[in-house]
C-alpha cells in the first residue's frame, strides 16, 4: 500500500506522510544496492511484469533491477509490436498478462490516463511508469529522494522546472511531489510550452527563465524533443539552447549549492550544456542510482503485505 492505494498512478492524492514513507523505505533499499551482494529475498516468489507500450530502456531497466534486487521475478513485455494488433484493445492485452498472475504490473504507455483505466480493471497492483503527458510518479519520487538526501529537508526549497511543461509527465509528478513536501515550485520555458492553469496544481509560472533560476535550490531541466507538432511550439533546437538552455552563465543566478537535475536522457548542448551536465552541481547520475532504490521501495510497499498501513 502507498497512501490508501494498492496502485501507484500519480503523486496527486498522496500526503506528505505517504511520500515520506516511500522515501524512508528507499533509504534501506539504497543500502542494499551498495552491498557486494545486492540482493535480498524479500519478494521471493513474486512476479513483476514490465509492460512497456512505449520504448524506454532506462525506466524499464531500473524497474527490472529493482525487482531482481528484491528477488522478485521480473518479466519484460515490450508491447510496441503486439499491442497494436488490430482488434485487441489495451484492456485485452493487459487482461492477458494478468491471467499469468503477476503481483505487480509496471506500465508505460503513450496515452495519458492509460494506467488509470487499467487499474480499475485489474486485481494486481499497477505502477505507472509514465503515461502520456500525465505523470511519472517513480521519477517524481526519485527526484524527491535525491533532493532530500542532499538537502536534508524539502521544506522551503525553491525548485524550478524548465522546459516543455505542457507535455512533461515528469513535471506533473514533480509539481505534486515537491509542493506536497513544502517546496516552492516554479515552472519556466517558452510560453508555448507552459500549459494554462498550471497554478491549479500548485506551481508558479516564473516571469522568465532567469527569474526562475535566480536563487533556486534545485533546477530540473526537461528533455526537449523535436516531434512532429513541435514546429508550432519552438522554431528549433539551436534557438532553444540559446534562450532556454541551462549554461554556466545562467547557473550563476542560482544558489551556490544548487542541484542540477534531469530525468534523462539528456540532450547535451540543447537544454543543458555539457559542462553543467558533468559539473559538480549535477546530480543526474545519482538520480539514476536513487531511481533503483526508490523503485525497490515502491515494489516492496505494493507487492504483498496486508492492506493495513504499518507505522
Amino acid at each position, binding site marked *: 500500500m502507498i497512501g490508501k492505494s494498492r496502485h501507484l498512478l500519480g503523486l*496527486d492524492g498522496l500526503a506528505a506522510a505517504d511520500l515520506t514513507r516511500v522515501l524512508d523505505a528507499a533509504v534501506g533499499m539504497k543500502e542494499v544496492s551498495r552491498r557486494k551482494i545486492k540482493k535480498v529475498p524479500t519478494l521471493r516468489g513474486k512476479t513483476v511484469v514490465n509492460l512497456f507500450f512505449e520504448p524506454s530502456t532506462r525506466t524499464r531497466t531500473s524497474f527490472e533491477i529493482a525487482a531482481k534486487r528484491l528477488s522478485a521475478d521480473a518479466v519484460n513485455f515490450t508491447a510496441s509490436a503486439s499491442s497494436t494488433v488490430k482488434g485487441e*484493445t*489495451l*484492456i485485452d492485452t493487459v487482461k492477458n498478462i494478468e491471467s499469468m498472475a503477476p503481483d505487480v504490473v509496471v506500465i508505460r*504507455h503513450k*496515452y*495519458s*490516463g*492509460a494506467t*488509470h*483505466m487499467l487499474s480499475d480493471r485489474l486485481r494486481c497492483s499497477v505502477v505507472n511508469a509514465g*503515461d*502520456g*503527458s*500525465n*505523470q511519472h510518479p517513480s521519477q517524481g519520487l526519485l527526484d524527491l529522494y535525491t533532493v532530500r538526501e542532499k538537502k536534508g529537508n524539502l521544506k522551503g526549497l525553491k525548485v524550478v522546472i524548465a522546459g516543455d511543461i*505542457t*507535455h512533461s*509527465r515528469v513535471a*506533473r509528478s514533480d509539481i505534486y511531489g515537491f509542493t506536497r513536501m513544502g517546496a516552492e515550485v516554479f515552472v519556466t520555458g517558452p510560453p508555448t510550452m507552459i*500549459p*494554462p*492553469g*498550471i*497554478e*491549479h*496544481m500548485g506551481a508558479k509560472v516564473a516571469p522568465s527563465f532567469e527569474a526562475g533560476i535566480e536563487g533556486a535550490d534545485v533546477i530540473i531541466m526537461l528533455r526537449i524533443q523535436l516531434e512532429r*507538432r513541435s514546429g508550432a511550439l519552438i522554431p528549433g533546437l539551436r534557438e532553444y539552447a540559446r534562450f532556454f538552455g541551462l549554461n554556466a552563465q545562467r547557473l550563476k543566478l542560482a544558489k551556490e549549492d544548487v542541484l542540477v537535475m534531469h530525468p534523462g536522457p539528456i540532450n547535451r548542448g540543447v537544454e543543458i550544456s555539457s559542462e553543467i551536465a558533468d559539473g559538480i552541481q549535477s546530480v543526474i547520475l545519482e538520480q539514476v542510482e536513487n531511481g533503483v532504490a526508490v523503485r525497490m521501495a515502491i515494489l516492496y510497499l505494493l507487492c504483498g503485505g496486508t492492506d493495513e498501513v504499518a507505522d
Partner: protein
Amino acid sequence: MKWLIKGGRILDPASGRDEVADILLEDGVIAGVGKQIVESRGAGKVQAKGLLVLPGMLDMHCHLREPGFEYKETVASGAAAAVKGGITSVMCMANTNPVNDGASVTAYILDKAADAGLARVYPVGSVTKGMKGESLSEMGELAAAGCVAVSDDGHPVPNGEIMRRAIQYSAAFGLFVIDHAEDLSIAGEGVMHEGYVSTMLGLEGIPTSAAVSEMARNIALLREFGGRIHIAHVSTRSAVDLIRNARAEGLDVTAETCPHYFTLDQEAVIGYDTSAKVKPPLRTADDVQGVIEGLADGTIEVIATDHAPHHADEKDVEFDLAAFGISGLETALALTLGLVEKGRLSLMDAFTKWTVNPARIAGLPGGRLEAGQPADVIVVDADREWTVDPAAFLSKGRNTPFRGMKVRGQVVNTFVGGNMVFDRAKGITR
C-alpha cells in the same frame, strides 16, 4: 384508436396555455383540448392527474448511425430511445456510412423509420459530397427525398467558399445549413477543453476559440451574402455572445445547445472518464453559466440532444482513442427539468426550446397542443426521481456521463400520430 388524456396539466408553449384540462387524440391529430371533454366512446383513457401533458419534443440534432454503424445504433433503436425520452421527432445527421449525401440514403433512412413506426424521423443531408468539404451535395435531390436541412455535423466545413455557397444554394430548396462550428487548425489533436483540467490530466486541449473562430467566419458570410444558419451545440459563453450580437444585427442565425453543456463542465473528465469525452468538449463553469444565460435571454432558441451513441468498445479505451459523444435521448427531458428546478428557466421557456421553436426553425409539423395538430403528445411525471442507469437504455449507446446521477422527471406515455408508442410500465407499445 382514440385516446383521451384526462386531468393533466396541459402545457403548450405555442399558445401559452397552462391549465388542467383534458385532451382528445383522434385520427392522428389532436381533436380537442378543453375542460371536461365528454368521454367519447371507445377511447383509451389515460389518467394524467398530477402529470404534465406536453407536445412531443423535437430533437433537431441526433445521430441514428444507420446505415453503416448499426452496431452503435439503428434507426429503430434510436427511435425507441427517443420516444422513451419524450422525443417524438428527430432530425438525424448525415455522418452515416455511406454519408447521407444523396436520395438513396435518405430514402433508406426514411424506410427504416417507417418500419420502426415510433418517432418521426427527418434526415439531414450532408453539405458536401461524402462530407469531404470539397464540393456541394446534391441538395435539390436531398430535399426532394425528404431531407429538411443540410449539415456536415461531426466535421466543420473548413473551406469558406464552400460554406458561403452552401448557405446560398440550400435556400433554393427550402433547406438551411446546420453549422458544426470548429476550426480544426485550432482544435488540433485536442480531446477535451483546454484549461486547468487538461493541464492537470496531461491531455491535449481544444481551445474555446476553435468554435468561435469558425462561427465568426460564417456569421461574416451571412452578413455579406444573406441567408440563414443554425448553429449546432453551442458550448461557450463567447459563442453565445457572438450569436447574440449577430441576432441583434438582424442576421438570421439560430442556435441550439445540449443538456450536457448546461449541466456539466470540464471537471467531468477528471479520472479520464471517456463518457464525458464529447465534441465540442465540456467547457468551464463560466461557459455553463454563459450557455444558461443564452437560453434564458432567448439567444439560444433550441435545446437538442446531439445524441451520439457509441459501442462500449469505442469508449472502453485510452482517453485519446475514445470516440467523442454522449448518448442523450433518454436523459434530455430530466436534465432540462433539472435546469428548470434550479430556477434558471421557466418550465414554459424550457419546453418552448424543445417544441415550437425547433418546429418553426426546421419547418416541421408538431410541437403544439391545438386542435388539428399532429397528435404527438407526451405525459410526464415531473416529480418522479430516478437514477440514470445506462443498462436500462433503449438506445444501443450506453455512453453517458450521467450514469448513476439522480435526476427528476420521467415520461409516462408518449403518443406519436395519435398512437401510444411508449408506456412507462409496458415499455415500447407498438
